[in-house]
């Protein structure tokens, strides 16, 4: 049994009357590829936002590496190794691909806004960034402004930026939404490789049920903020509550 990396205990989050999360609990072990699925409005993105510290839950705790994250800012959480990508691209559009990835790589090399530039650290960052670019086949685009790339590549740059920081756990919000089949396959392969190579644990929010069931080691199914199912991917299709949420009630 590998050790538990991330735990959520009884998370509650509501916006005025709308209950986004109702007592969500789960845990992710080291090396997992944990998928969160559910219909639109199920609270998947809200869950990620709570985990990465953008929303503050009204109740419940998030424990990462055995430490309660309550009260920690998003950037503190990122620096502890809790990476994040977004559903709608949130790249630095005016910066080159290389600079985007370098910015991510600084997390792995350490330190920040340094008013005394140090060549040694810069080389380290550069090499680190180039390694990730190479890995995700982005090297030819390194000097292109990120905003000028096609959508599929931008998605890949976002994953590259997050991976360059060598997170222990990476929260991916619908990385495959809007991609073509080939791009999906590429990205899935990159993610699996990253998991194997760098030991990154992945938490994936996804709509594509088939991709999820093929890739993941554990699944959390949500609907209207509640957990419908948690367990092995094989059990998802058999679960009556999931079938009801996804396919509608049978007559």
């Amino acid at each position, binding site marked *: 049994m590998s050790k538990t990396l991330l735990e959520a205990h009884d998370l509650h989050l509501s916006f005025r009357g709308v209950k986004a999360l109702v007592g969500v609990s789960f845990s992710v072990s080291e090396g997992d590829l944990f998928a969160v699925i559910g219909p639109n409005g199920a609270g998947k993105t809200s869950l990620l936002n709570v985990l990465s510290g953008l929303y503050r839950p009204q109740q419940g705790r998030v424990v990462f590496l055995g430490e309660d994250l309550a009260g920690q800012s*998003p*950037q503190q959480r990122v620096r502890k190794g809790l990476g994040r990508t977004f559903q709608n691209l949130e790249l630095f559009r*005016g*910066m080159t691909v290389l600079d985007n990835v370098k910015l991510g790589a600084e997390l792995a090399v350490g330190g920040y806004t*340094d*008013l005394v530039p140090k060549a040694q650290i810069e080389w380290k960052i550069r090499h680190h960034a180039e390694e990730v670019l190479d890995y995700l086949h982005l090297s030819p685009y390194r000097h292109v402004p990120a905003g000028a790339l096609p959508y599929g590549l931008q998605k890949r740059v976002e994953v590259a930026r997050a991976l360059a920081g060598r997170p222990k756990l990476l929260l991916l919000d619908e990385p495959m939404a809007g991609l073509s089949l080939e791009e999906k396959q590429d990205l899935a392969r990159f993610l699996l490789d990253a998991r194997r190579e760098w030991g990154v644990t992945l938490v994936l929010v996804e709509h594509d049920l088939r991709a999820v069931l093929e890739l993941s080691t554990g699944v959390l199914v949500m609907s209207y903020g509640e957990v419908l199912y948690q367990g092995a991917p094989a059990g998802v299709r058999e679960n009556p509550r999931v079938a009801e949420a996804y396919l509608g009630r049978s007559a």
Partner: protein
Amino acid sequence: MYRLSQTLTDAFSRRFSRTVREDYRQDEAYASTPQGRFWLAVAIVGVLALPLLLPPYPLFVTTQILIAALAGLGLHLLVGGAGQISLGQAAFVGVGAYVSSHLTGDLAPLGILAGGLVAALIGIVLGIPSLRIKGVYLAIATLAFQLLADYVFKRWTGFTGGVAGRTLPAEATFLGLPLADDRVVFYLGLAFAIPMFFYAKRLLSTRAGRAWFAVRDNDLSAQLSGVDLVRSKLTAFALSAFYGGIAGGILMHLIGAVTPENFVLAFSIQYLAIVIVGGAGTVLGAVLGALFIVLIPEILSVMAGAFGPQYVAQLSAWRSVAFGVLILLFLILEPRGLVGLWGRIRDYFRTWPLPY
């Protein structure tokens, strides 16, 4: 014939184009080619030799360009770098000028430095609203600061000399050289400006610069890439004010006096114009922008003078109009600013005899 043209093209591209960069180190260097290094050296030597070549008035204008470039560069770090707008740059120039007016003579460099540091401290304070407000609202907050500073400059007579301002004693010397001599002031300014230009360039291409660009492009995402927003914004404000303050100290020595009308809102807008006309993204932009903004009015007034002395008064009004029209045309025809234009000219000459 085809062979000949190919050989020629090859020879030219080897000579004039950027050579293929073979490793990351070359890719990140300032001037990656021998030609680049050569022209950089020529430019620096040329600037150093300027006082020996230029008559007094053109040298005065050149020093003004230097000062405007420095203040503009500071604003550029803030506006083009961190994406925070400020209408208060002239106030920082003023702070630097007033502080350095109290510490001059042999201590002039120290006074200028002190002016920069005091401006930086005030810059941090001004940066605090930027943590909560953005865009136009921030512009209004900095506008309020500009107007407040203007008021303080006029009223705090003990420190600033009020509306009359403070005058540098005519006999003041720096290490035996008279500070009333523009050549001395030019070299004094250059001693600050050259390191500061290189520092800014380095800063923008390393981690501090990346953090600023990240804040500019997408602050949510910057946060989730581990950028400390507070620190990033405040350092941008502090540095921008520091550059302004240093520029102010040099300006004080150039004019030989400080009066509040050198630091009014119009100058803040002029510095913003330098950033915009110069083109966002590079240090070169600030220099070219300053060149344009300071030099064009001078050229226009020389042109007005050429028609004969009796027209000068009439034409001086048209001078401002022509200046405004030029800026407008610029923004419409070359949105990337002078830097973009420069890049196009350079590309043209790089492939000059055989463009394809």
